[in-house]
């Protein structure tokens, strides 16, 4: 990458004068438009960790935090390798001028991809200093033993990192990792002191005392407020605009109009609100936005009646005319991220400071993409732009587009003053890159013994990672010839059949689409696990036993999760005499994360509601770096499972996004929340896999299956309404 010098980052992070710093040259440059895909290698971590002369460790976070608290786990790894207490490590949210570019925070990849580079860097630093201690004591390196915050040796030698570093006049640099450095994180030879133990998330105190953490918390001198009129979909074009008397609004400063963009800048937030309400925009759409149109586009049965689908994930001697024991169609709704924080960004142009011509404060999953996009947008060099990334109030895959930042840059450029843009909640719903609608036709055939013989899963989903405007228009058609790895998530069954066919088509929908928690994992596995449950009922067998049997000799980790969750759920019997049921579901996310969930559900006739009483979850994501935060992610995924199964649906119609706020888009509330019991199956010899979106793949299926057990009602459409359940309650009526 041009212009990235070691010196630049040394200066940026203030460690030129003293201290041991390990840095390296980055060799990769991300492509122009896509999210930043620079997956870390063994060297990458060297840029993120420093030891200061006072013995403190500085950790420049390579991940953006949005509640998953991945940096907490990475910090535990540093503590493990450097024999430090976590309190001795200072975590820093770096701006883009302080660290080399790192990858977009997405895909539950943080611990999977970053744990090793972080461990290598910390261990290399430790070994560098160990050699120095050996030199100082004139003893062999192997005689220098680990000691908290430093080293010791017999008889009675002790030295701290601080003492080893402070004697240096110049900073130490390490051009490459020490390949021989022993990694305590991944080795079983030493009992772990930090990894594998529960650790409190970083910034807890700041979060409970209301300290500034998020982009909107930033205030700058002479700052104005701006907001644009957001289109219902990103590719809409302005057809006409009618304006009220904006100048009559006290505090009105300026209207800003560009191609397909109109917004206002004012002196206060309320003035913005008033001015925006005086602007009426008629948008020209490329496709009508109606629920009927969306249903038509994802209608799998209609597509199958015309032939095969576009892509095949599995095609093993399929038989389309088999005798089907189960033949069901499942319809999955569109969902919004609805993060608690509506996006905000502040932009400021500086004519005097060359390296800070443009500064942007924002919460983003991908700060280096923001810098790239801002460069393309303004024509400034990337080196002249600084992004100050902030903690996000929830991300869930929805915070990687250059949008609120672009609004802020447009306004700040127009008024030559800093401008804060705070999206309203309705802007969030309009701009969301939603989880697409999908429909699934699943047909399962069995042999005389009841074992799976034929598997046919056909589905149509809106695009996910290849949704429009996630790639440039010229690149999309070519990319779409290949699999959309968001749409394929969850498509391959864990069950073994003699013949199998998994086929899918991905389509453009009238609403904006993109990456949402678990991608297609939750929709596909909801459908598969519902169908498998129905098959077990048809065969009159225990559904957990049946699932395990149909995995044959494969999937030992998933089987263990299922067995575990069966035990956990059995510990609390279902209440007697009520309309209650217990359902199970399980699955594998991304080939590396294993999960099983049970749900106990009550059909509450008095309150006319479906109440999830209790959910148990057993999860195996390899090494459990921070068991408490793994449990927190399970709890979060169970809340989302309730939302997906029972509550959430993005409403569209009249060529607009009708869901605009939490009064017409329901998410789980405290009273919707079941009791959650979680079990983390630790695999200390398997590198950690992500956990942010794993349990959501099994939760909705478990709830649907519990409703089936309680009432006989098989949910074929999400979200499940109480009225649907009652109308078709075959057991009680």
């Amino acid at each position: 990458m041009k212009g990235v010098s070691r010196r630049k980052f040394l200066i940026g992070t203030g460690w030129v004068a003293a201290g041991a710093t390990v840095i390296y040259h980055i060799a990769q440059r991300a492509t122009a438009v896509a999210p930043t895909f620079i997956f870390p290698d063994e060297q990458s971590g060297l840029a993120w960790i420093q030891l200061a002369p006072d013995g403190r460790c500085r950790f420049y976070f390579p991940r953006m935090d949005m509640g998953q608290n991945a940096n907490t786990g990475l910090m535990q790894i540093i503590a493990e390798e450097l024999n430090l207490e976590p309190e001795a490590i200072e975590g820093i949210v770096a701006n883009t001028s302080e660290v080399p570019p790192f990858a977009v925070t997405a895909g539950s990849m943080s611990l999977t991809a970053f744990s090793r580079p972080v461990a290598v860097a910390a261990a290399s630093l430790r070994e560098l200093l160990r050699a120095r201690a050996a030199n100082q004591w004139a003893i062999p390196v192997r005689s220098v033993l680990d000691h908290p915050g430093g080293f010791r040796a017999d008889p009675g030698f002790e030295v701290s990192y601080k003492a080893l570093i402070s004697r240096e006049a110049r900073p130490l640099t390490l051009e490459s990792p020490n390949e021989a450095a022993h990694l305590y994180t991944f080795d079983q030879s030493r009992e772990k002191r930090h990894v594998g133990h529960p650790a409190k998330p970083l910034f807890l105190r700041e979060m409970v005392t209301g300290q500034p953490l998020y982009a909107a918390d930033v205030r700058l001198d002479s700052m104005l407020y701006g907001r644009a009129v957001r289109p219902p979909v990103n590719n809409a074009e302005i057809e006409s605009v009618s304006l009220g008397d904006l100048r009559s609004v006290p505090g009105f400063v300026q209207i800003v109009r560009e191609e397909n963009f109109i917004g206002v800048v004012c002196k206060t937030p309320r003035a913005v609100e008033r001015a925006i309400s005086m602007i009426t925009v008629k948008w020209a759409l490329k496709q009508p936005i109606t629920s009927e149109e969306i249903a038509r586009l994802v209608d799998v049965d209609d597509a199958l009646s015309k032939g095969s689908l576009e892509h095949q994930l599995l095609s093993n001697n399929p038989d389309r005319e088999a005798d089907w024991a189960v033949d069901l169609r499942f319809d999955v709704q569109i969902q919004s991220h609805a993060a608690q924080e509506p996006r905000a960004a502040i932009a400021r142009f500086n004519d005097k400071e060359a390296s800070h011509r443009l500064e942007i404060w924002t919460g983003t999953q991908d700060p280096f993409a923001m810098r790239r996009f801002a460069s393309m947008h303004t024509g400034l060099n990337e080196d002249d732009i600084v992004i100050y990334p902030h903690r996000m109030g929830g991300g869930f895959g929805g915070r990687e587009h250059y949008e609120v930042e672009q609004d802020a840059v447009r306004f700040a450029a127009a008024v030559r003053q800093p401008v804060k843009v705070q999206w309203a909640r309705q802007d969030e719903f309009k701009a969301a890159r939603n989880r697409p609608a999908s429909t699934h036709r699943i047909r399962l055939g069995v042999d005389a013994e009841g074992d799976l013989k034929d598997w046919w899963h056909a589905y149509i989903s809106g695009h996910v990672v290849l949704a429009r405007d996630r790639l440039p228009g010229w690149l999309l058609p070519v990319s779409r010839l290949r699999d959309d790895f968001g749409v394929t998530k969850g498509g391959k069954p864990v069950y073994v059949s003699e013949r199998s066919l998994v086929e899918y088509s991905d389509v453009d929908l009238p609403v904006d689409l993109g990456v949402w928690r678990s991608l297609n994992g939750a929709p596909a596995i909801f459908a598969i696990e519902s169908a498998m449950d129905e098959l077990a009922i048809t065969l009159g067998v225990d559904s957990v036993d049946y699932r395990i049997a149909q995995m044959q000799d494969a999937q030992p980790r998933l089987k263990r999760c299922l067995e575990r969750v069966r035990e956990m759920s059995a510990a609390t019997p279902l209440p007697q005499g009520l309309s209650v049921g217990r359902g199970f579901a399980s699955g594998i996310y991304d080939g590396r994360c294993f999960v099983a969930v049970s749900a106990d559900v009550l059909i509450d006739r008095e309150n006319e509601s479906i109440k999830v009483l209790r959910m148990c979850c057993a999860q195996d994501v390899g090494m459990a770096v921070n068991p408490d935060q793994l449990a927190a992610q399970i709890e979060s995924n169970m809340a989302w499972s309730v939302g997906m199964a029972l509550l959430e649906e993005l409403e569209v119609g009249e060529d607009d996004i009708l869901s605009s706020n939490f009064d017409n888009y329901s998410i789980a509330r405290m009273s919707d929340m079941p009791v959650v019991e979680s079990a983390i199956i630790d695999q200390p010899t398997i590198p950690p896999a992500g956990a942010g979106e794993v349990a959501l793949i099994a939760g909705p299926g478990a709830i649907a299956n519990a409703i089936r057990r309680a009432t006989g009602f098989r949910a074929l459409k999400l979200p499940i309404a109480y009225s649907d359940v009652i109308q078709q309650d075959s057991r009680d009526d």
Partner: protein
Amino acid sequence: MRLKVNGKERSVDGSWQDETLLDVLREQFGLIGTRYSCGIGQCGACTVHVDGEPVNSCLLPVGLAEDKKILTIEGLQAADGSLHPLQNAWIEAAAPQCGFCQSGQIMRALSLLQNNSEPSDSDIDEAMDGNLCRCGSYPRIKQAIRSAAESMQGSPS
């Protein structure tokens, strides 16, 4: 116009007197711990206490808070900087995930415990149902409220 915020008198600039209490707190006074999330009183992220009652500050014109006692999350710590039992309980339970809603959650929980020192689970559900948490930190919020209720027993809140 003057407001009494966290025990201090503060004056509202003339050009800010038509704003919401939330925007005045955040943008004028820099008390950014109270957060904007829905703007229509549907999520509770902006909960503050006005004369001891929890209100959605995103809905309240600042003029209606004039001369009233306003308590925000920043006013919860004691003068010596020690945390309120609710804040300690929140940390102990590691309740926050993204953290964005938590100021409002804590302020609502404070109101609950001021009125009911031994809330049942359903009391907690009822009191907290207007405070949304997209991360789903509810089980830990509930646990934190229970443990704060215990530690606040007998001590003035």
